[in-house]
């Protein structure tokens, strides 16, 4: 149904989101125009910036390649093979996202070389990571979940009939994968890859630790050193330009993608293949990955705990844990809720305006978080001072900033759910909003879960927004991790870092439980009346209606 204008219920939040995301751009433009010096020209338009840009692009491409090489096999193993336990695979695919990149980098640095953890425990001197390959490795290890979750969700919803058809037309499993499955994964890959690209483009902490000069690191350092808003505004705008190019590229690649089933009848759940002789190979892959992405960093963190015997402030940890989890959970919900209209408009409505709306979310993500935070400081104090440094503002900031992480997965699920089903909902008497709730939302639930997971984990790790916008006294895990590691107080940082990982693990288990509900239930051995359908909540009043109270 190609109604020309989106339903107001979707349009209003979308417009709100776009405006919110554009605020920082207005701010940056205001700041950038406040410049006058010739020095500025020297900083912004120097050839070194081109070198730095080239470095950044090289790194981005490398990380995209690296993450794909890790995420695709892992997602395939988890979604399509009989390799068990699947929970473990998913855990491995999500948990690294709970470890902030700089912590991972620190941990890997601390683990390697003479006197490192590995040396201390095993006597092996593993060379320390550094330079291009170091940055590539660390960024790959701690961002591949963006691709993993996207690909995993897509692989679990693909219509197996298409692969069957390819096999019957003479394709081997491998050819089938290449010619049918991979094209199907394109939007999922693109949405994950875009996040990773934006992440790499904007990262300064990991590349700094790995001593690999990139554009955004230069911006950050310029800022730290010079306290000058004007320079950094210009440079941030330049970064946004690069991001804009990435967005255009992605939009081009997304053009004409058709995934939704065109056949009558229901989609079966995809078939799982036994690994057979490839199983040992798969286990080696998993072991290496788990070793690099989880065991070494988490092991190092645990090892740090040993360093100091100070009685640890458990109450402080608990407070930080609660603060972080609360904010992350709320932000995950609000962000996903706001991402849905954007993704819906972007995938169900045609026209440049619809596409622009959806893309706008990515600008918010690409704006350097510090600039984003300052923009909000600027506007809140001018427009709504009472909101300044409140929980509401903080959540709004998270929501606008991480919108992009939530848009992609929802969009991918929307692309795979045929609009026919929504039409059927309307014809069965549901209004557009009711159809959204009862047809579309259940269909895109896997995507919504992934979106929420991304935002949740990102908020847990977030720093600049939290530092500047949180209510005073608001405690988070990430701030503690960051400030303690910066000061080489590893033992104090360790519990907070572990708490981050535990949150990640909890979340992963939650996702898995929800996901498992999609797995075909065993046949109805019980009488039909026993299992009420979802559509009719059984009218079982738990308390008598004539309760005199």
């Amino acid at each position, binding site marked *: 149904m190609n109604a020309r204008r989106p339903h107001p219920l979707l349009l209003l939040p979308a417009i709100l989101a776009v405006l919110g995301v554009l605020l920082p751009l207005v701010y940056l433009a205001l700041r950038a125009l406040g410049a006058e010096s010739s*020095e500025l020209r*020297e*900083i912004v338009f*120097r050839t*070194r910036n081109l070198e730095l840009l080239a470095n950044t692009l090289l790194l981005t491409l490398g990380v995209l390649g690296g993450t794909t090489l890790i995420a695709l096999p892992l997602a395939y193993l988890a979604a399509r093979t009989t390799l068990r336990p699947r929970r473990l695979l998913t855990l491995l695919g999500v948990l690294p996202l709970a470890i902030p990149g700089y912590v991972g980098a*620190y941990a890997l*640095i*601390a683990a*390697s*070389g*003479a*006197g*490192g953890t590995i040396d201390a425990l095993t006597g092996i001197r593993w060379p*320390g990571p*550094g330079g291009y390959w170091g940055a590539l490795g660390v960024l790959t290890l701690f961002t591949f979940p963006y691709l993993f979750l996207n690909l995993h969700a897509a692989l679990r919803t693909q219509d197996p009939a298409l692969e069957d058809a390819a096999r019957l037309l003479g394709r081997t499993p491998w050819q089938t994968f290449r010619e049918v499955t991979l094209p199907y994964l394109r939007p999922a890959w693109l949405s994950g890859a875009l996040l990773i690209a934006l992440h790499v483009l904007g990262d300064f902490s990991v590349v*700094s*630790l790995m*001593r690999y000069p990139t554009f955004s*690191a*230069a911006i950050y*350092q*310029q*800022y*730290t*050193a*010079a*306290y000058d*808003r004007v320079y950094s505004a210009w440079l941030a705008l330049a970064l946004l330009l690069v991001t804009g190019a990435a967005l255009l590229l992605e939009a081009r690649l997304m053009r004409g993608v058709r995934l939704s089933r065109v056949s009558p009848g229901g989609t079966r759940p995809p078939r799982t293949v036994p690994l057979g002789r490839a199983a040992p190979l798969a286990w080696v892959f998993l072991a290496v990955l788990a070793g690099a992405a989880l065991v070494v960093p988490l092991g190092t963190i645990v090892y740090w705990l040993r*360093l*100091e015997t100070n009685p640890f402030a458990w109450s402080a940890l608990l407070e930080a844990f609660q603060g972080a989890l609360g904010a992350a959970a709320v932000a995950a919900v609000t962000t996903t809720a706001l991402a849905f209209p954007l993704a819906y408009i972007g995938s169900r409505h045609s026209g440049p305006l619809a596409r622009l709306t959806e893309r706008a979310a990515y600008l918010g993500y690409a704006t350097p978080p*510090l600039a984003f*935070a*300052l923009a909000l*400081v*600027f506007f809140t*104090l001018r427009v709504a*001072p009472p909101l*300044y*440094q409140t929980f509401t503002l903080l959540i709004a900031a998270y929501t606008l900033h991480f919108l992009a992480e939530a848009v992609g997965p929802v969009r991918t699920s929307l692309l795979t759910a045929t609009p026919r089903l929504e039409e059927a909902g309307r014809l069965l008497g549901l209004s557009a909003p009711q159809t959204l709730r009862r047809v579309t939302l259940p269909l895109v639930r896997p995507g919504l879960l992934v979106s929420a997971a991304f935002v949740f984990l990102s908020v847990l790790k977030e720093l*600049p927004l939290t*530092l*500047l916008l949180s209510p*005073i*006294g608001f405690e988070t895990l990430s*701030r*503690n991790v960051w*400030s*303690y*590691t*910066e*000061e*080489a*107080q*590893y033992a*104090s940082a360790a519990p907070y870092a572990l708490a981050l990982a535990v949150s990640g693990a909890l979340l992963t288990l939650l996702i898995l439980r929800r996901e498992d509900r999609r797995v075909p239930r065993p046949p109805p051995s019980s009488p039909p009346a026993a299992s009420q359908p979802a559509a009719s909540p059984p009218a079982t009043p738990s308390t008598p209606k004539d309760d005199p109270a």
Partner: protein
Amino acid sequence: QTKTLTVYSGRAKTFVDPVVQQFERQTGIKVNVRYGTDAQLVAALREEGSKSPADVYWGNSVGALGELAEEGKFTKLGTALTRNVSSDYLPDDRTWLPTTVRFRTLAYNTGKIKPEQLPDSILDLPKMTSLKGRIGWTVSYPSFQDFLAAMISKYGEATTRQWIEGMKALQPKDYKTSNVGMLEAMRAGEIDVALTNHYYIQRVNRLSYPIDTYFFKNGDIGNLGNATGAAILKTSKNTASAARFLSALVAKDAQTFFLSVNFEYPVIGNILQPTTMLPYSDVSKRSPRIDPTVLPKNIDKAQKLLRDAGLL
């Protein structure tokens, strides 16, 4: 009269929180602290302008304090506050109060380098061709840029440029802003000497890394002393409490605390020191006298030199 005080702290929570708690206990004034990096907080204060809720700014570097002071964001401090504080790092206009002092120094790997092999002056470091590829520095770190700014004010731009070029020829490894990362690299054997702040060495020594401190000769710019400090903002509606807070920072309890957790030198006398550190009277002689108020002006020049050298 409000009973709460808002502090913007560029300093990490470990150094701040115990002091704050004690202050609250003693005075009954509630203190809200907003943590961040100096750069973030300076930017935030600028954006907040006159609407800032902050009463006190507690900074981690002279650079940040200087920037804000220059913009006239601080009130002038009364003599009651500054009286007991060592005048070495107190700015002439008394806009901010030094709280601790740290020194630039050279860290070296005790397994690879003997202190005798190291030069007397940092100006001679570029001549140490034997250290080629084995030196670490943190070009983007504020203290390092403060040091260059000091070098410019003492020796002029030409000498400084020459020094930078000379260093560059030795292919030092740039650890950007991360001193900890740099010392980890030294532990792992990537580098053997590193330009850093003295307390980082003290900290990693607790992890029993094979790293020690080397001071250049007395008065050498390589031993530059550098203060952290606190100031009262003009936006404060609670200057009395703010002043009480500042005076608590330079009280004996707090000063002892800074020394014990962070190995930073106190700005008042009569504080006991751990044996691993040189006494203050000793180190303070090692540092040249540089007016802290001139530093901020020279930081721009230092950055330009670094940019010209392709290091930033």
